[in-house]
């Protein structure tokens, strides 16, 4: 079917080669830098003392590159670079639009914070098993997924980040970790396999893998049945990756088992890649089918929110509790995807960015809670406020942000989402978001009451303990971001609105991939 129509097109424009503009290399640099550093760190496996001092400047450079990319995309519009100058739809394209660039920047910031924390937590044996190389390859996978413009490439980057996450998850090989890793590995592998199935069928329908090409071809009305099925499969596959309700049980089984740094990275990055892919594929590529799936997505979103927050209410281990908070956050993001309006999408993007920073900070916090209080169980913790009142204040900032209470960054996306839901007449979605926020407040109130205010047991009598710099610095930096974007949200709001607008009307994105309309 594809062959005869292709031969009729004038493809001469696709074969014209011109040198790549220097600034276009920015699109590929985040991935190339991560893979390169990962390779260097692997070669230095005998000199693990150097690892941290190479990885941290490397990640700082990554933050700068991603910031430059975001600046360029914000000024000039979406940027595309095609491998080997085989112009689309033949070559493999890397396309960065606002959504991809801002998510990549947030991922780099989160990874930099987590790697600082790792200096104090990952021991020599952890480094020898390859913590920093795995971290770099995980970042390569995450950045690649955010920046690629080719749907099969998206699958490949998913696999890159998945195999690195396996390596990180079993770092230390405790029995509990192997148990959690087995469930995580099997279920996530099934999810990516489902994704591959949908990609194969999408290729069968459209005869192309380039996202911009698919987006154009999907806007031409055709037989709706195969695309509707595919959209459902994509929803299932990415929902599983993002831990949406009926397929979320791998997350509370595995996220509390690895090292704190690893949990923090996972909570900050991995589920959000699923949400990103869901937005990219359903909203931008298959908008008609996305609208048709709206009611189902809304039900999934509400169920995820409530399942997450009710799970958190019943949990007494704070690491597992935070795992359930991740799930309820995913539900809130899905609510915006279900609404599908520009307001809903910009709320989802804002919430995703907020949640990347916040969940990483919360997991890092749980590590310090365990160090000060001697364990993770709410039944045993107590007296943290007397141990270190600065730390308690910082915890309260993060808890308020997690509940979505005003002066912090969790407040704005919820306001946008509730308003978008009311504008669309979906009062039940707005009610579910507000109810979840209320229950989350009880969850975090309970933690603060029991772990911080309750008179402690033995440790309470000890002298107040300071927090080491490699734990305090990333926590303070992430909290500063949360406070900053809570007090001055205009910039980020504007940015997320533009990103959502670019998804609703991807003409700028399409133009960056097909400057001369090569495929048409």
């Amino acid at each position, binding site marked *: 079917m594809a062959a005869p129509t292709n*031969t009729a097109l004038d493809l001469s424009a696709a074969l014209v080669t011109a040198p790549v503009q220097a600034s276009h290399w920015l699109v590929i640099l985040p991935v190339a830098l991560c893979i390169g550093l990962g390779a260097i760190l692997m070669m230095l496996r005998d000199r693990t003392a150097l690892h941290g001092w190479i990885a941290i400047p490397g990640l700082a450079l990554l933050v700068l590159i991603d910031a430059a990319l975001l600046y360029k995309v914000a000024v000039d519009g979406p940027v595309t670079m095609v491998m080997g100058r085989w112009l689309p739809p033949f070559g493999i394209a890397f396309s960065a639009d606002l959504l991809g660039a801002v998510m990549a920047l947030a991922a780099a910031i989160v990874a930099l914070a987590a790697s600082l924390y790792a200096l104090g937590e990952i021991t020599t044996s952890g480094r020898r098993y390859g913590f920093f190389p795995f971290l770099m390859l995980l970042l390569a996978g995450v950045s690649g997924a955010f920046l690629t413009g080719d749907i099969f490439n998206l699958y490949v980057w998913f696999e890159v980040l998945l*195999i690195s996450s*396996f390596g990180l998850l079993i770092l230390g090989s405790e029995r509990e970790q*192997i*148990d959690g890793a087995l469930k995580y*590995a*099997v279920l996530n592998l099934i999810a990516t396999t489902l994704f591959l199935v949908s990609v194969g069928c999408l290729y069968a329908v459209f005869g192309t*893998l380039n996202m911009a090409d698919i987006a154009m071809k999907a806007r031409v009305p055709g037989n709706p049945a195969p695309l509707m099925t595919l959209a459902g499969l994509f929803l299932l596959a990415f929902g599983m990756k993002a831990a949406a309700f009926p397929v979320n049980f791998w997350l509370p089984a595995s996220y509390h088992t690895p090292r704190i740094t690893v949990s923090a990275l996972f909570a900050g990055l991995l589920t959000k890649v699923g949400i990103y892919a869901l937005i990219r594929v359903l909203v931008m590529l298959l908008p008609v089918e996305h609208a048709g799936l709206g009611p189902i997505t809304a039900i999934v979103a509400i169920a995820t929110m409530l399942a997450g927050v009710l799970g958190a209410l019943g949990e*007494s281990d704070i690491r597992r509790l935070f795992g359930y908070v991740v799930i309820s956050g995913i539900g809130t993001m899905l609510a915006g995807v279900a609404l599908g309006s520009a307001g809903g999408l910009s709320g989802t993007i804002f919430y995703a960015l907020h949640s990347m920073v916040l969940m990483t900070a919360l997991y890092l916090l749980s590590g310090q809670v365990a160090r000060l209080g001697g364990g993770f169980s709410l039944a045993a913790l107590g007296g943290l406020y007397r141990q270190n009142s600065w730390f308690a204040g910082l915890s309260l900032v993060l808890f308020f942000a997690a509940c979505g209470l005003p002066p912090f960054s969790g407040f704005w996306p919820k306001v946008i989402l509730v308003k978008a839901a009311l504008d669309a007449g979906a009062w039940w979605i707005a009610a579910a978001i507000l109810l979840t926020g209320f229950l989350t407040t009880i969850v975090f109130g309970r933690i603060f009451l029991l772990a911080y205010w309750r008179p402690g047991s033995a440790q309470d009598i000890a002298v107040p303990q300071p927090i080491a710099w490699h734990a305090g610095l990333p926590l303070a930096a992430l909290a500063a971001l949360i406070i900053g974007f809570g007090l001055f949200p205009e910039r980020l709001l504007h940015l997320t609105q533009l990103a959502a607008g670019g998804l609703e009307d991807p003409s700028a994105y399409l133009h960056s991939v097909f400057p001369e309309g090569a495929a048409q």
Partner: protein
Amino acid sequence: MEVVFATLVGLFFAAAIYLMLSKFSIRIMLGIAILGNAVNLLLFTAGRVTPEVPPIIPAGADMLDANAANPLPQALILTAIVISFSFLAFLLVLTYRAYQDLKTDNTGEMRLAEPEERPLPPLGY
């Protein structure tokens, strides 16, 4: 031809899902191996099964014959085979390690990360 392939893919998927629903981790691994092959066959079929012409431009012509086979699915399958093979290798080692450490291959008994009897959350202040 496509009907035969589609039926075969369906059978592979059915067998894979049946095995993955098992309690025993080694059967789950066998299911995942079959699932990977089912997906490869599906990709192959999705690229249209055309027996006629290899995708080579004949001398004197400047475009492919309309009946030429599509080379892209082969490239995709090659990638997918490599990935699914490496993942299967990792998972087999993980399963073996889990069997050694947890002394069971019954996933119903693997409750270390999520113990069945957990203490109640604190009920009072």
